[in-house]
């Protein structure tokens, strides 16, 4: 019934994307490849948008899907998870086990109507500083297109 709960609901949808709005992007990067790739982008002075915040994890296999739900609920506009290319995993098969989870998760969120731009997965090697920046730019552009996150996000 919940007739009277003074509770927060889904954030109010905004019909237009505010002009000055900059999305908040979270990237989970595996220590051995993608984080190193991000470092290489820095060493190579490749410029990319300032929106991203990185959380370093040992392996893309460390990513619990719940982390991603938590991020979206909290209002993070986009999440990128990046690991080693298949076969390159420092932990032999961490990214391959993770890949199955990611495939399901990606479909799952899309299925309930979450914009596919919000949660993305990629492989970036330690030698691919440029690729890291390109993927990041793509994620930022994609999220900018779909605007601030509302679905799944809670205000208290």
């Amino acid at each position, binding site marked *: 019934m919940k007739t009277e709960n003074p509770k927060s609901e889904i954030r109010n949808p905004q019909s237009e994307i505010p002009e000055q709005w900059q999305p908040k992007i979270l990237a989970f990067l595996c220590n051995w490849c993608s984080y190193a790739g991000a470092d290489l982008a820095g060493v190579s002075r490749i410029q990319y948008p300032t929106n991203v915040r990185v959380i370093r994890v040992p392996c893309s296999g460390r990513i619990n899907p719940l982390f991603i739900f938590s991020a979206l609920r909290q209002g993070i506009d986009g999440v990128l998870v990046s690991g080693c290319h298949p076969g390159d995993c420092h932990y032999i098969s961490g990214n391959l086990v993770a890949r199955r989870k990611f495939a399901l998760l990606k479909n799952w969120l899309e299925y309930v*109507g979450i914009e596919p731009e919000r949660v993305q997965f990629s492989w970036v090697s330690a030698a691919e500083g440029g690729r890291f920046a390109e993927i990041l730019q793509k994620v930022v552009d994609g999220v900018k297109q779909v605007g601030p996150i509302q*679905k799944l996000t809670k205000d208290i």
Partner: protein
Amino acid sequence: MRQKTNLSDELKWVARKLFEENRIDLLIGYEKGTLPLHNRPCFVSSVEGVDKLVWDSLCANNLATYLPRLFTRTHRPKGWKPPRVAIVAKGCDARSVVGLIKEKQAPRENIVILGVPCDGVVDLRKIEDALDGACPVSAKVAEDGSIMLQLDSGKSVQVSREKALFDACSDCPYPDAPVFDIRIGREIGDKSARRPFKDVEEFEAKSPEPRWKYFLEEMSKCIRCYACRQACPNCYCPTCFAEQTQPKWLGVGADLPEVMYFHLGRIFHQAGRCVDCGACVRACPMGIDLRIFTRKMVKDVQELFGYEAGISLDEPPPLCTFKMEDDESFITEP
């Protein structure tokens, strides 16, 4: 297709035999309930209780749900020995049992799966719809499978099988237990009813906003009683992520984002486990259409990894393994 022999009698005979030969300590089956359309789970621990056993289309509950607690790793009293348990299992229930055995929630050697042929169980809500407010006082499954109801007004009503069956049953690919120890009755064997995932495909074909709207509407009904979880045989986690602290994944409020988080998480956790038995939907007091969501996970697991839950004891769970050539079309490329 309908079974001519009286399956309840055959079941009682087998149960008696199992007790007499001291092969089991406990049998989980169904007995007649106090409400007309609801045969309910019962636990028989000696030959004396055997006579109350029934098996028909009013036996809807997935009894596999009760297995993990019998072998729980906490609260084992001194001198505890794993019980030997026989369980009455429809196709879906048996698949759940297989899943639980695979996930070590029940030792294979202690379980006797009594496979019963099932051409569908009755959906209470559908009957209520058919009765349009009238109140049944008793119900019986007729020879042709239709449901005969006696109403409080004194009238009697017949509801055809098609109108009475639970949705999951009309699409069921496994009317017989794919793994069993003793088969009750004869195999149905016919899987022609199989119409895999038409509903999911239709839902997928919608544009994102209607999908979101539907998800939102269904989620708005949720009162977070967790009955879906409690009824699900796969939800045997000692502490569900929804109730964990340190860290606390979910807030306790009835906020929609929290409700959604719960269902997104729970259903994700069903990947490779869900057998589409419908226990969650039956248990949900608010009538949330959970199956359109749970079945997506079933479909994806099948399509991406070629895995169907609970049909083999040997195949590794799909999220515990991988293939080099697994799909990665979802990977973002620059």
